[in-house]
């Protein structure tokens, strides 16, 4: 890689150990991915916030780093393990809470915007077309590349962190227009469509595609389906972007058979003890939709609904939270289904969700069974 004189000096430690560490990380990732230089980025979004994902090693690293590190560009963060406002209602041990607090404090000390959300594209103003950002949350990276006109690789926790500290990222893969073009098209052949089928399409695409993929036969996506597609894709592989329409090169059909295979992989129960909605977190449109679907109905079991803190005031003012809480829903902010310590396999055997990404992590990390169905079916079957 060719570095500028300033970058070279920072790498050699002339601006302190923190920047040396950040540049070492960018250069290492750049060398490993074939980049020839570093380029400026305007916004970093970090993963590695939930104590369940980074553990003691991550907590210690961040505590050490935050002693003198400061973020150089706009930096937002993924959800943490729970909502501090409601954590006392859950049986969570004090150690987890303390460890999570330490991680939160470390990030905030370094100057993060305390968003604790996996949908930064929905709660912040999006920069102008073609702007380079550095998003570590996979659904957000895919959404940014595919819908928001931004450019990012599907970053790792450390590459995004190093980008936040330096305002730079290696120029490789999806940052390069020549490498963004998909060479595989997936033809959507499933007739009936809802957010769940699009989630499974994404999950299928993530498994078979390289860094980008074209989707044909897809149109009229609502917000819920867009997010589900991005999250499904981010869960199963390395793919960081899609385009609409057919491209040259190989073509694969996503038909009923392929969809059934994925459903069989992720759906391991015909019922659940608990419902979770959100992964990705629900934004204001989806919360509004949910509130109107729940008019005159009530959940027959616990239902946890995950949202960004940024919409708390609005959904209260619009009366959505009141309607959802009347129906028995528990709205939680700053956290999400994925690797949630609030879903404990000592208390529940199986969970109902419409999220393909949620299903994957509930199975692999929380070790519970999953009943995967669309939101429409959840409301029909789980409320009265």
């Amino acid at each position: 890689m060719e570095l500028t004189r300033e970058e070279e000096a920072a790498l050699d430690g002339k601006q302190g150990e923190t920047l040396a560490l950040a540049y070492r990380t960018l250069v290492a990732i750049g060398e490993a991915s074939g980049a020839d230089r570093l380029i400026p980025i305007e916004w970093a979004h970090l993963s590695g916030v939930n104590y369940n994902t980074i553990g003691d090693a991550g907590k210690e690293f961040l505590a050490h780093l935050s002693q003198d590190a400061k973020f150089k560009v706009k930096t937002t963060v993924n959800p943490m393990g729970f909502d501090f406002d409601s954590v006392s209602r859950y049986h969570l041990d004090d150690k987890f809470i303390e460890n999570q607090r330490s991680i939160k404090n470390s990030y905030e000390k370094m100057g993060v915007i305390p968003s604790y959300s996996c949908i930064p594209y929905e709660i912040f103003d999006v920069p102008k077309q073609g702007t380079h950002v550095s998003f570590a949350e996979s659904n957000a990276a895919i959404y940014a590349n595919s819908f928001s006109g931004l450019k990012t690789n599907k970053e790792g926790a450390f590459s995004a962190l190093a980008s936040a500290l330096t305002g730079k990222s290696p120029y490789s893969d999806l940052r390069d227009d020549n490498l963004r073009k998909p060479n595989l098209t997936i033809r959507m052949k499933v007739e009936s469509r809802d957010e769940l089928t699009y989630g499974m399409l994404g999950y299928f695409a993530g498994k078979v595609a390289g860094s980008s993929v074209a989707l044909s036969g897809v149109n009229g996506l609502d917000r819920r389906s867009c997010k589900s597609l991005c999250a499904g894709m981010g869960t199963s592989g390395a793919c960081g972007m899609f385009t609409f329409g057919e491209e040259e090169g190989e073509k694969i059909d996503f038909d009923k058979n392929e969809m059934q295979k994925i459903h069989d992989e992720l759906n391991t129960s015909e019922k659940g003890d608990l419902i979770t909605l959100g992964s990705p977190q629900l934004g204001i449109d989806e919360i509004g939709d949910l509130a109107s679907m729940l008019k005159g109905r009530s959940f027959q079991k616990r239902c946890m609904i995950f949202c960004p803190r940024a919409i708390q005031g609005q959904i209260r003012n619009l009366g959505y939270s009141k309607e959802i809480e009347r129906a028995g829903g528990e709205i939680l902010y700053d956290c999400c289904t994925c690797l949630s310590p609030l879903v404990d396999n000592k208390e529940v055997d199986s969970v109902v969700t419409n999220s393909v990404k949620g299903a994957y992590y509930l199975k692999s990390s929380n070790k519970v069974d999953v009943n995967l169905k669309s939101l429409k079916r959840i409301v029909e079957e789980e409320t009265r």
Partner: protein
Amino acid sequence: MNVKVIVRGKTKGPLLVAKNPINFLGGIDKKTGIVHDKKHDLFGKSIGDKILAFPFGIGSSVGAYTLYSLKYNNCAPLAMICIKADLTTASGCAISNIPLVVISKDDYDLLQENKEITLDAVEGKIL
């Protein structure tokens, strides 16, 4: 032997050569540096203060934090040699300041267990 530098640095020490890929998150005790994955060919051995050669890293990207813990607990390798630099190993070595280089499969097969080598991960040479 010429190498591609991923994380810079210079060091000297005995080689520890693995046949299997390493999962840092699940396979290594971060407090002692001892390989505790029973299925791994280095099972029971310490990777601390050695120049560790292994094909590539596997498993969760959180494994990068394990490398940092090893360094923090003074039981990290002196340097690492891989055939392929996966992003977890690359970023883990970078945040922990452990020199990392990539070599070809043919050169990898020439590495001898316990042999004292000098690794120059600035000029890109193994002596």
